[in-house]
C-alpha cells in the first residue's frame, strides 16, 4: 500500500542541512560528494556538510519520500559506478517550494522592519 504523503507545510521549517540538500538537488541528480560541493558553493563555503550530517539527512529524506535513489548516471563515462545518485521527487519539490515561500515571507517582514534594504 502506498504511504500517503503529508502536507508539505507540516514539514516546515526544514533544518538548514535538509534545506541545502534539497536546494542542491533541485538542479539535477547528484551523489553525496556532489551535494556536499554544491552546498559549499552556494553558501560561499559557510556550510560544509560532514559525512554523518549528509547521510543522516539523506536517510530521513529517503524515508519521507522527498528524494529517491536513481540508477541513471548524468555522465556514465566520467562516473564511478559505486556512487549512489539521489533525485528530488515531486513531493520534495513541493516541500522545497513551501520552505522557500516561508523564507521569502520572513524576508518581506525583515524588509518592512527595515532590517533589509528593499529590492528595486
Amino acid at each position, binding site marked *: 500500500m502506498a504511504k500517503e504523503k503529508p502536507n508539505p507545510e507540516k514539514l516546515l521549517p526544514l533544518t538548514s542541512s535538509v534545506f541545502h540538500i534539497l536546494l542542491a538537488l533541485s538542479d539535477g541528480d547528484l551523489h*553525496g*560528494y556532489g551535494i*556536499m560541493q554544491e552546498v559549499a558553493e552556494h553558501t560561499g563555503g559557510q556550510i*560544509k556538510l*560532514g*559525512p*554523518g*550530517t*549528509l*547521510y*543522516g539527512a*539523506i*536517510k530521513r529524506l529517503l524515508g519521507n519520500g522527498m528524494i529517491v535513489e536513481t540508477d541513471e548516471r548524468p555522465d556514465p563515462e566520467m562516473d564511478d559506478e*559505486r*556512487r*549512489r545518485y539521489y533525485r528530488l521527487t515531486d513531493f520534495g519539490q513541493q516541500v522545497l517550494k513551501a520552505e522557500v515561500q516561508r523564507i521569502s515571507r520572513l524576508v518581506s517582514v525583515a524588509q518592512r522592519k527595515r532590517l533589509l534594504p528593499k529590492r528595486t
Partner: protein
Amino acid sequence: MSLSKRIFQLMLLAYPREFRLEYGSDMTQLFRDCYRDIQRTGLICAIAFWRRMILDVIRTAPLERWEALERRYKTMKNLKGDLIGLVACAAILVATFLLFGYGRRHEIGTIWMFALDAIVTAGVVSNLIIFPLVMATRLSAFRTALWTLLLVNGALLLIATLIGNRADPEFNFSAVFAAYVVSFVFWLTFHWLRSQMRPQLS
C-alpha cells in the same frame, strides 16, 4: 591516506550497525574525496578538516543511535502486545471451554450453549489466522481481525446451516445465527480493546 581512512572507519563505529551497513561505504568514500581535496593544503587546513569530521560524528552518531533504539523499542512493544494478546486469547478460550462443560452438565438453555460453542470454534479458527498474520505482516490489527472474524464466522454459520439442516430435523437457524453474531461481537470487542492498547508501527 590509508591510515586516515582507517581512523575514519574506526570513528564510524560510533554509528549503529544498520546505519553503517547502509551508508558506511558512502561515508568513507565522501571522507576520501574530502581528504583528497585538503591534501594539497597546509597543516592548519588539515587540523580544521579533522576537527570538522570529529565534531560531525559527535553531533550525528548519538542521534542515529537514539533513532535505532526507538525503532527497536517500538518493535519490542508490538511483540509484547502480541504476546499479551495471545495469552489473553488463550485464557478466554479456556474459560469458554469450562463454561461450555458446565453448561452441558447442568443443561443450561440452548441459545447460550450455541453461543459458547460458536465463540470457541470461531475463536480458535479466527485467532489462529489473525495473530500470525498481524505478527508477520504488521497489517492493521483491528482491520485484520474485523475481516477475518467476518469471514470465519460467516463461513462457520454457512457450514452449520448446510450440515445442521440435514443432520438435525429440529435445527434452529435463528439460534445458530444469533450465536455467531454473539461470537463475532465478542471477538471483535476483544481485538478492538487490544488495538487500543497496542501502538501501531507507522
